């Protein structure tokens, strides 16, 4: 209980946000309107309510969404919008996504839920071969841009192989879809609304560990946060850290500790992994000369590899040290060994120091 509050408070106050003009947002989530302190699943729930209330051709469907969902993200939707718009589907991920593609191809907003990212693979064919290519292969005669696929991802402390995976890297390799991962409740609401309204199919991974643990002031009104714009959430000058989702809070703790040793860390939330904001990361690396990427997914072939290759390509002569990656081990996500597997604060801290002292 105590730990929950601490983590909650840390995320609420510890995230320093640099003001930045947003290209498409109606508002950046600050300022106007009432804001209430809510957790991640409630923020997502709010986004879904708004999505359905502002577009009567929006639908929410997936396994168990009708009663509110196994993580309560879809609470109240069926009661409010009716069974025709919010409904359970059979237990079949390829069916859920295929059905969603069809619905979206008819101009609807199809918001599909995959119960755990670990179970998204049966739908991989529909996502890669169908959704991602729907517009391109038809010469833009057809598209399924109204499709958004939501899935809880990431470590939860006791999830093991099949309730902890971070499969984002598989999807970042697919031209035609977008991949978005929020770090907090306020981010989640604005990003999810952008994803739903984006005219491209999007996969939205929600850090399940933060569903209850992360609590933040979230404006109650309808607002959107831009996609493909990374955010510098902590300014620094010695090293750039890049991450997304739940891992950012771990990275932030490492940054705080590094600061005590006089290392000034700049922390970037990528937010959209595909297409990702290379410019913001590059600008930061040009400033610091060092970069460290951290993600829960196994290190080999993880999305950190793409960021690393791209930064080296663009900033080779500016780099003072090799690009560091602090990631999950190359093993299936273990149960009792989870604490060993994870890219912990101290692993990150050690890597920060090694990079700075290179």
């Amino acid at each position, binding site marked *: 209980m105590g730990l929950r509050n601490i983590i909650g408070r840390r995320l609420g106050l510890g995230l320093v946000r640099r003001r930045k003009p947003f290209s498409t947002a109606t508002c950046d989530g600050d300022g106007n309107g009432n804001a209430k302190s809510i957790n991640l699943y409630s923020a997502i729930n709010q986004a879904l309510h708004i999505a359905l209330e502002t577009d009567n051709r929006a639908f929410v469907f997936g396994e168990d969404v009708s009663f509110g969902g196994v993580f309560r993200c879809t609470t109240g939707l069926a009661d409010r919008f009716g069974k025709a718009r919010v409904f359970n589907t059979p237990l079949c991920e390829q069916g859920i*996504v*295929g*059905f969603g*593609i069809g619905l979206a*191809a008819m101009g609807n907003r199809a918001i599909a839920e995959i119960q755990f990212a670990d179970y998204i693979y049966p739908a991989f064919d529909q996502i890669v071969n169908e959704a991602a290519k729907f517009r391109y292969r*038809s*010469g*833009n005669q057809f598209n399924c841009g109204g499709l958004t696929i939501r899935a809880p991802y990431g470590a939860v402390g006791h999830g093991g192989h099949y309730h902890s995976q971070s499969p984002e890297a598989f999807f970042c390799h697919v031209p035609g879809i977008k991949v978005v991962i929020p770090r907090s409740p306020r981010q989640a609401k604005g990003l999810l609304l952008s994803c739903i309204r984006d005219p491209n199919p999007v996969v939205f991974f929600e850090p399940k560990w933060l569903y209850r643990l992360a609590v933040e002031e979230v404006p109650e009104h309808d607002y959107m946060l831009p996609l493909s714009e990374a955010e510098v959430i902590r300014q620094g000058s010695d090293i750039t850290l890049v991450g997304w989702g739940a891992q950012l809070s771990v990275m932030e703790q490492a940054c705080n500790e590094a600061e005590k040793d006089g290392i000034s860390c700049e922390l970037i939330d990528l937010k959209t992994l595909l297409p990702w904001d290379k410019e913001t990361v590059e600008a930061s690396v040009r400033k610091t000369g060092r970069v460290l990427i951290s993600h829960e997914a196994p290190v080999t072939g993880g999305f950190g590899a793409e960021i690393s290759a791209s930064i080296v390509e663009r900033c080779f002569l500016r780099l003072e040290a090799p690009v560091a990656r602090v990631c999950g081990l190359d093993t299936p996500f273990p149960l009792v060994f989870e604490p060993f597997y994870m890219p912990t604060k101290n692993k990150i801290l050690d890597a920060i120091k090694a990079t700075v002292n290179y």
Partner: protein
Amino acid sequence: MASWGRRSSGMVHHIKALSKVELRGKAGEMKGGWWRYPLQPGVASALVPRSWPCVNTMASLFLVQRFKSSLPQKQVEDDDDDDQDLDFPGGKVACTSEMKFISGSYDKRIPCYRVLGDDGELIKDGSDFEKVNKELAVKMYRDMVCLQIMDTFLYEAQRQGRISFYMTSFGEEAATISSAAALTKDDIILPQYREQGVLLWRGFTLQEIVNQCFGNKDDGGKGRQMPVHYGSSKHNFVTVSSPIATQLPQAAGMAYSLKMDKKDACVVAFIGDGGTSEGDFHAGLNFAAVMEAPVIFVCRNNGWAISTPTSDQFRSDGVVVKGQAYGIPSIRVDGTDALAVYSAIRAARNMAINEQRPVLVESLAYRVGHHSTSDDSTKYRSLSEIEHWKTGRDPLLKAIQVAEGTEKPPLTELFTDVYDLPPSNLVEQEKLLRQTVNKYPHDFPSDVSLH
């Protein structure tokens, strides 16, 4: 679960009768250590013997809880279950004490709906079909001929290296064109890849088809895909994609949208026999059934998935029987019979739209051509088999065969109709000629009878 509870409570009675068992309120083992008691006191107890599949106490606790949530309608009075009904999630089920497995297949195969006989004439005994007017019939025929000729040309074009790839629909022309004829232009087509007949019917021009095959700048798909991957939003024909069966769950989603709009239209999704083995077939049919979506699933069973015959594809009675597993009404139809296909699809469409539900149509039409230009089917099937099906129900080739095998007119006809009646010179000439023919038979063709 409920039935286990029932059985167990029947056993309670039985055991009580056998031994003086006291049902205790807390976990414990009976003397002799054979039985375990459930942990929950006060709930309808279920004694679970060690030999029961669900052995440990926690599981039996679970059993008990589940049992509680679906209480029986009446108490078990005796061990005879025959009059029992099981009120189970999903609906009431009658119980029986006869242990009987449903067979894997019916005694007889599902018959194939057909209106025209092998001779092209209506089968007698009052065929049940929807009549087409002359205009429609002529268009169907013309489009089938056009399709066959177009396929021939484009196949040749590939062989000449002018296009990279092609797939013909020889033998299946009626299946696609008659289906298209039975639909309206508002019905949305989700093809597999062998339904160019539907496109032709709807007015997609030969030029547009060929543009797609060449992938030139006038290709609606902008040159991105291989030949035969056509699509046209104008004609409500969704672009072809190579992966098999992916269109089926999409069909359910599109049809659901039509349902929301209360449109007088349905989705028609095509699939081959091979495609029914894909997971997406199961996903598509199940979703369409649960969502009560107006989709017609048309399976073109042409006997082959490239080189794989249907005997290697499934062990069911073809595809038509699979519909029932999803609660979907289904029919098997002769895919070479234009009138039968037309009637079946019309009926299916009415059912799909008026009842807002999916329908499955299995069309049987042998794949006369190769799978594609990348395939030489003589490598896995005999020429005689191909010939049999090529001429079997193909009216033109059949007519040629029949004509070829038919005798010429008799010799008498050489001399008739010169005049209204033969004059004496012709009567004499015929007599002389017949003598010559008898003397030198090898000088004369044998297929002219001498009668």
